[in-house]
């Protein structure tokens, strides 16, 4: 069972029952899940987690949907690799990469969608929906297939063919919207308000967003129930960024981290900060869509929306719902925010591929180039424990790195082969 007491508005603190709601009726502020942490503390333990499935559902006591029969395509429990080669290149001796690009539909979205789909079934929905430029559409369609639900995915009409096929193969009803980015947003918001569907980031959003906490839990568990000194995270809406922070703090408050005494959560569970959580939270966005970074750089508490114009389309959210909350986390954690120049996004993809054998999408390129900046600027010390989050797979954005294809073209003879080889890499037989 899920230990959820209800929902609460982040702005005015009004409380609501745990239903398919995302906005406060009074002030239109966002609603967040409220947990019964007293009961969770009696139940949860490291042993209970370790005995759970090798997916996000091993943390079911800390998720807002029942883990008894979840919609599970085995999202999560992805590798945390010691990145020796990349670390050597950047002068970081204690660098890890959380490789979330190997989730079942090839992005971290499987974590949030698994929770949203499970909750949607609990609520009795028959249809699950989303609006997406790629990763989310794939994940929603895949989970709907697993759950036997109908899925409706809205995509921009000019979306790349590869991404369209990656979602369409699971059999959703696909709606290609012909309009500007802002028009697509407004239409989908209106559809979400008018159809009895579980729209994952509208009426399911409070539950959906909680799935990202597992990115914090897993890293801590894989490090032996410790937290890193630094994390580097790519951001779009800012939700994942705030939830990783929340995940670290929940583990600390529940006494699950090594050598850390438990602490009460206080009235506002979503802003709890255990003093033992000293991880510095570093946000990276691509320069062509960096509303949160811009606000941080200008010292503003409000986020000014932008019109996205970035190669990193999976991060292209011009009006980020959790922007102001992400700014608070950066400040509270002593972290930073950095906008990666568009020209360096692909360099980040190639650097990770060439050093660690991991092919990430453009969002991962933003992470790696942001990490490089942090290392070079001295913000991260050489021996500090650092985790870089890689959230999507390079097969989704192959067009970004098409220039890497430059094979040796030879005639089917040894002499032709050896001549070409010597010309390219100076190797003689």
């Amino acid at each position, binding site marked *: 069972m899920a230990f959820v007491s209800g929902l609460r508005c982040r*702005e005015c603190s009004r409380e609501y029952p745990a239903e398919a709601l*995302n*906005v406060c009726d*009074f*002030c*239109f*502020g*966002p609603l967040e899940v409220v947990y019964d942490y007293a009961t969770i503390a009696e139940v949860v333990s490291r042993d209970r987690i370790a005995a759970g499935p090798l997916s996000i559902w091993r943390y079911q006591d800390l998720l807002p949907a029942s883990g008894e029969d979840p919609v599970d395509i085995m999202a999560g429990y992805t590798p945390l690799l010691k990145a020796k080669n990349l670390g050597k290149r950047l002068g970081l001796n204690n660098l890890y990469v959380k490789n979330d690009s190997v989730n079942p539909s090839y992005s971290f*979205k499987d974590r949030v969608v698994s929770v949203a789909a499970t909750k949607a079934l609990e609520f009795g929905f028959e249809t699950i929906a*989303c*609006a*997406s*430029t*790629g*990763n*989310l559409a794939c994940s929603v369609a895949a989970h709907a297939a697993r759950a036997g639900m109908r899925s409706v995915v*809205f995509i*921009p009409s000019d979306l790349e063919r590869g991404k369209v096929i990656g979602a369409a193969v699971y059999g959703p009803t696909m709606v290609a919207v012909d309009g500007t*980015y*802002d028009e*697509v*947003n*407004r239409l*989908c*918001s*209106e559809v*979400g*308000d008018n159809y009895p569907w579980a*729209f994952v*980031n*509208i009426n399911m*959003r409070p539950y959906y967003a909680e799935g990202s906490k597992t990115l914090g839990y897993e890293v801590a568990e894989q490090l032996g129930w410790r937290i890193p000194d630094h994390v580097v995270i790519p951001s*779009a*809406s800012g939700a994942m960024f705030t939830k990783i922070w929340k995940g670290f703090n929940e583990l600390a408050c529940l006494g699950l981290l090594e050598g850390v005494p438990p602490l009460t959560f206080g009235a506002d569970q979503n802003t709890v900060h255990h003093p033992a959580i000293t991880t510095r939270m570093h946000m990276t966005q691509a320069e062509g869509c960096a509303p949160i970074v811009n606000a941080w750089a200008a010292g503003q508490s*409000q986020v*000014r*929306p932008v019109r996205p114009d970035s190669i990193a*389309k*999976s*991060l*292209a*959210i*011009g*009006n*980020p*719902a*959790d*922007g102001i909350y992400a700014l608070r986390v950066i400040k509270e954690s002593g972290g930073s925010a950095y906008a990666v120049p568009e020209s360096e996004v692909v360099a980040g993809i190639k650097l990770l591929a060439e050093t660690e054998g991991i092919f990430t999408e453009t*969002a991962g390129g933003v992470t790696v180039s942001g990490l490089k900046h942090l290392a070079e600027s001295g913000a991260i010390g050489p021996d500090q424990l650092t985790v870089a989050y890689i959230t*999507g797979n390079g097969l989704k954005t192959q067009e970004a790195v098409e220039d890497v294809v430059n094979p040796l073209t030879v005639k089917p003879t040894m002499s032709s082969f050896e001549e070409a080889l010597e010309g390219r890499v100076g190797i003689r037989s």
Partner: protein
Amino acid sequence: MGRQRVKFTFEGELVKEPIIYMLGRDFHLVTNIRRADVGESIGWVVLELDGEKEEIERGLQWVSSTGVRVDPVSGDVVQG
């Protein structure tokens, strides 16, 4: 009849314009402000609009044409 929740963001000189008053007057909409933060050079207002569906649509098109940004209340819906 229809009802829609939206967020307007005003920048620069637009902060001084009575956009919400004109929206109500010219498109026969009831405007109900729930949250706002207006400064000298930027401001936002979260509000609910009540009226004929076609008028809400026409009204929002007019607001956009003035340069005011119109967004869903809960931020961008389209995700990566």
